[in-house]
């Protein structure tokens, strides 16, 4: 959360290397070390992909179910059958719910901190929201299950009563605190500080001239935000949302503690009030029983898919930032 933009503050890039380098031994060693570190990172990320793939392939080859479209998960034995459909669905739904809550809320909180809060409150308010990021995932999960969860039952019943005719809101009889919806809400709290921190930084950078211009033309505070702050901050908000999404997709412990899993023969349901599993929670659940390479390989295959998905999300965030060149994180 230390991201500070340096764009526009010093348009000059620090001095070029080649001209200043003296070609002396010390320079060659130091430059070599720095470059090696850089390359190490590239190698590391590549290794992650390669290793996961390498370990997953033998199990995938033995898999007798469709890996992408099956809901089964029995990776051991002579006839392993496992697929990620249920995991993909659980991951998608919890992340989407988290985004639907956290992005608007995070943007609103960022606007509050940068545009509305009185000066004395602005900084403490920002630090307070940052503190949310200091609470470990496992504590969120334990708290959600034992303290907060019980208050979600009436919410669920209320929504089910009003909108239960929609398949998405159909009550499946799962305990409220163990539904995808509640897990998504806890994830929302967890990614809120990320979304807020990055949005707040872009909003703080909106050129004063833009804002004063709008106000001088007679805009109200809200209109000024709409015409000056939000358009300027849009790419930053998008990248904030993507980074938040990246985090939500891979969150493990809170989801593992909260979610009820579905039984092998459960009917497929689109309801957010159903239980389920995410990639991360399924892997964590199996972590104690990685006893044969074949079984471990199945979990690693799920991890590989999660890696690819987060890779794509983060790469997209990066591209959005690069293209707009409005913000760097």
């Amino acid at each position: 959360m230390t991201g500070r933009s340096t764009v526009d503050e010093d348009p000059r890039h620090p001095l070029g290397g080649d001209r200043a380098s003296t070609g002396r031994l010390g320079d060659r060693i130091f430059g070599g070390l720095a470059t090696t570190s850089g390359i190490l990172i590239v190698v590391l990320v590549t290794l992650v992909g390669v290793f996961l793939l390498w370990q997953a392939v033998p199990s995938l080859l033995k898999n007798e179910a469709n890996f992408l479209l099956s809901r089964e998960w029995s990776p051991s034995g002579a006839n392993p059958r496992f697929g990620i459909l249920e995991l993909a669905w659980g991951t998608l739904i919890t992340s989407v719910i988290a985004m639907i809550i956290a992005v608007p809320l995070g943007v609103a909180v960022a606007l509050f901190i940068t545009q509305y809060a009185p000066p004395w409150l602005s900084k403490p308010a920002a630090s307070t929201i940052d503190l949310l990021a200091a609470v470990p995932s496992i504590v969120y999960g334990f708290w959600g299950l034992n303290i907060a969860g019980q208050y979600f039952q009436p919410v669920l019943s209320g929504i089910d009563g009003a909108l239960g005719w929609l398949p998405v809101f159909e009550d499946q009889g799962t305990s409220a605190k163990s539904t995808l919806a509640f897990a998504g809400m806890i994830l929302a709290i967890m990614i809120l500080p990320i979304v807020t921190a990055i949005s707040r930084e872009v909003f703080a950078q909106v050129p004063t001239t833009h804002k004063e211009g709008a106000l001088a033309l007679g805009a109200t505070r809200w209109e000024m935000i709409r015409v000056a702050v939000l358009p300027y901050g849009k790419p930053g908000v998008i990248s904030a949302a993507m980074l938040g999404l990246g985090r939500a997709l891979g969150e493990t412990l809170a989801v593992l503690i909260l979610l009820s899993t579905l039984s092998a023969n459960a009917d497929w349901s689109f309801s957010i009030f159903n239980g389920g599993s995410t990639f991360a929670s399924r892997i964590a659940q199996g972590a104690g029983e990685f006893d044969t390479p074949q079984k471990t390989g199945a979990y690693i295959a799920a991890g590989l898919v999660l890696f690819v998905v987060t890779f794509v999300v983060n790469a997209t965030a990066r591209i959005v930032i690069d293209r707009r060149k409005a913000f760097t994180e």
Partner: protein
Amino acid sequence: MSSAQVDHAAAPPAAGVPTPSAFGEKSGGRAVKDVTARVVMWLAFGIAVVPLVWILGSTLVKGGHMLVDSVWWTNSQSGITSRRVGGGAVHAIQGTLIQAAVTAAMSVPVGVLTAVYLVEYGRGRLARTVSFMVDILTGIPSIVAGLFIYALWVTTLGFQRVAFAVTLALAMLMIPTIVRSTEEMLKLVPNELREASYALGVPKWKTIMKIVVPTAFSGIVTGVLLGLARVMGETAPLIILGPYTKVIATDLFDGLMATLPTMINQDRTEALQPALDRVWGASLTLILLVFMLNLLGRFVGRFSKVKG
């Protein structure tokens, strides 16, 4: 935070005063919208604070009494079963601190050097690739990092699940945060300093080591501390790589080492009050540890010679 002052100076004209406005005449609808937006923003902040206060409150109320007992800070859980009251968390606190220190020792050189590369040396395609990969590494879920190290350390190399493997996974998560924060700090070091140094005939590597890095030093330390705060609470790689134990262990390469997150993870699966008390106690200890690192990081940041 100059924006706030600007807003005050440029407060909208009082209602009723006819102003030629590109937004049209001040109508009731616009004023209502403006007030509504203001209320919504305040409300949003209020909503965001609720879970924080709630979670800290619960942890404090349910775990506070554990931390007051001095045994908590001096003893391990050795010989304590889930039905017995007593014992402390020192084995877990110590494990968490040891692993954090080792993680930092591995991540800081790599992270800082990579940042130096990106800012001082990197040009062209390789630099763009490195920068891109740092972003990707930032986004790698902790469980994937754990799984990768498991695939490497246990399945491929045939080693045991030990504390060192945990620190490898944590380092993967910590390196990108250090790279990014250091990079920002290095970019803030004025070019005039570099130019002056070069003009005196100082070689580039000495300029970086003696001028650039020291100037940005406290900013880098802040980045390291905040990065540490982030990885300390990580649990996912630990449940794959570092099973819990009740006794004090200091060997990174042999046997198991307890940490606060795995202590929470172990005791949360018990039904009885002594174990649940320990969960809240360990949670509170962990939160306090992370808070303190955060505060310390911000505190060190105050001495930074370059300001972001």
